[in-house]
């Protein structure tokens, strides 16, 4: 932290992500979720519990809003006063949007949540002191706090049940903030393999747990800067760009044929999850 270093590399330290240039190389993990395919079955959520050692908090704590589901399925109704929801409901899987300009990162007093070189919003459990400022600042409310010491709670992982815990993922103690990581343990493993073979991770080589489970394959996940990846193609086809707060779709008068959008784009967190609008038949 010498002053020399500071002054010599001043321009580097004053560099803005992701607006100044192509944000990440060779990886920028991103997702796209087709709401027309999503059936709201909750398989992704259970798979996430299985993969990421999420505690089951029990009825009482759930009642207090202390659930720990990193990915939750939201069910929305139409907001007109029809007697019956005759166009069905709308489901939306909501998890950490891994924002490029995450509102949570800047406010953490101890820098426990940072932006990684892969474009993830990382949460460093060891570093977290539990001020919950990140959660206060998250527009999506997808950060989950360990209100209790779940590992030592009697019925969370009693004997035998604890053998299911994924050794690749930490079990978080009390007072620590946690959230969806895009299954970073899987990404690391895949990157390691790819590096040892002198290449980058191929599309489809790594899946998140939710994506893997999703019976309707509504979730695609991959490397946004890899032109071969499905996610890249989807974002491209939908003309959604990472560092924009208004997309082509919204600019066009009278609507467009594109379905891609990101939630709360106007707040400029630049989320890495693109949703594809749900389609409803116009003929009935």
């Amino acid at each position, binding site marked *: 932290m010498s002053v020399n270093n500071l002054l010599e590399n001043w321009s580097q330290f004053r560099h803005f992500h992701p607006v100044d240039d192509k944000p990440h190389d060779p990886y920028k993990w991103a997702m796209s979720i087709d709401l027309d395919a999503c059936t709201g079955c909750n398989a992704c959520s259970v798979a996430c519990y299985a993969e990421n050692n999420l505690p089951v908090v029990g009825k009482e704590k759930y009642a207090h809003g202390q659930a720990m589901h990193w990915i939750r399925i939201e069910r929305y109704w139409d907001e007109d006063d029809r007697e019956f929801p005759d166009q069905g409901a709308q489901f939306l899987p909501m998890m950490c949007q891994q924002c490029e300009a995450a509102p949570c990162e800047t406010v953490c007093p101890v*820098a426990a949540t940072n932006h990684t070189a892969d474009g993830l919003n990382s949460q460093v459990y060891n570093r977290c002191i539990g001020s*919950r400022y990140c959660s206060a600042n998250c*527009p999506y409310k997808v950060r989950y706090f360990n209100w209790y010491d779940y590992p030592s709670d009697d019925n969370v992982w009693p004997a035998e049940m604890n053998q299911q815990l994924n050794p690749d993922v930490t079990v978080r103690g009390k007072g620590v903030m946690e959230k969806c990581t895009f299954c970073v343990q899987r990404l690391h493993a895949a990157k390691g393999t790819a590096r040892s073979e002198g290449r980058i991770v191929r599309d489809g080589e790594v899946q998140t747990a939710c994506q893997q489970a999703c019976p309707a394959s509504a979730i695609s996940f991959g490397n946004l800067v890899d032109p071969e990846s499905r996610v890249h193609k989807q974002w491209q086809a939908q003309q959604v760009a990472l560092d924009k707060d208004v997309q082509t779709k919204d600019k066009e008068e009278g609507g467009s044929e594109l379905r891609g959008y990101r939630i709360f784009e106007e707040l400029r967190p630049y989320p890495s999850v693109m949703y594809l609008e749900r389609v409803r038949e116009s003929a009935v």
Partner: protein
Amino acid sequence: MKDIREDIAWAKINKDVLGSLENPRKLYWVILFCAFAAFGVGIGCEVYQYQTGLGVANLNNPHAWGLYISTFIFWIGMSHSGTLLSAILHLMHADWRKPIYRFAEAMTTFSLMTAGLFVMVHIGRLWQFYYSLPYPDERGIWPNFQSPLLWDAMAIFTYLSSSILFLYVGMIPDLAICRDNMHEGWRKKLYTLLSLGWEGTDRQWRNFRVTYLTIACFLIPLAVSVHSIVAADFAMSQQPGWHVTSFPPYFVAGALYSGCSGIITLFIILRYVFKFEEYMTLSILKKIVRLTFAIAMVWTYLNAVEFASVWYSSDQASKDILIQKATGTYAPFWWGMIFCGSIVPLTLAFKRAQTSIPMLFAVSLLLNLGMWLERWMIIAPTFSHGYYPWTWDHDQWPSLVQWGMVFGSFGWFTMLFMVFCKVFPSVSMYEVKEMVYHRSLHLKKSETAEQGAP
């Protein structure tokens, strides 16, 4: 009505104030005992929460902060009037500050200490709190200087240490008086140590004056910065209801407001408990009351500005929160805040109210209740009614653990304050002497003028 009688003998001032260190009224001990008991409750709650986890406070995912941060802001606000007013009035040569500034500054110090406690009890891993301190360590990791929480910590540290220095420097001559008049014992040793050998020489006085003035100059912008930084905790975020440009001045006004009403409350208590009727006169009280009234109106104005700017903006989310505050679950508290903060102070416009001790006591408590509610109404509705409707939650009621700690904090503050007033002179003796001296000179002058002009 005079601020102070001009003919009080200097020796009597010494005697009266030193007397407060030894024989207060019995009420003192009652207050101290109650404060200690309340503090005990707070300690119990904290131990339980530390052992079990923050869940026992009944906080949850959207509603992450609760009463801890509300009360934190309340105490920070409480701290504002003491030092800030003392500094401003000092610069303006308003000598009526002299009998009351000492306890006001003590109030600042102790409410800052109380506020600090809330930062501690609020964090999830208290045992790791040192991660937020900026020191070079073997981990090679620094805290995040971008975080308003860190600014907060830094500002509070600066403010607390500066306030303590201001209080201490201003107290040195009085400590020398105590040293000179105390019988042998721990008190004498303490005063001897703290008075640093002060003798009141011209050299000491000269440097004292410059130093005191300098610190006062620093403290004014500092105090403003402290509460605007606390406001930045909210205004720097994107959350609806917090992302408000007028928050910093609004917070500062709110802080001065609650601080002033806190001064009124403590003024009344001290005056009675330590028999300071001679020094803490109703005339001075009236001045503070008028000041409080003015600040109340500033606060009301800023409040109205905030509502108006939200209402006429196109920010639907913020508007929703405002509607929610006025009509939703929190409506009784929100209207309670409006009532206590904007309606109750109107009574202070009446002359009779300005000198009625029981009335002022009740009003000052109501004002502070209003200001506490204000802080809660800043925190809670935004959490329960933020951007994301799916997570809206209005049924989050703070648990007894939270209330216990809020209660305990009042005990802690009162305990520290009462102990301070018993150990250190809570009325500045040398400055009251100055006040009496200058006023008697002035009186003399005008008398001579009258006589000289036939």
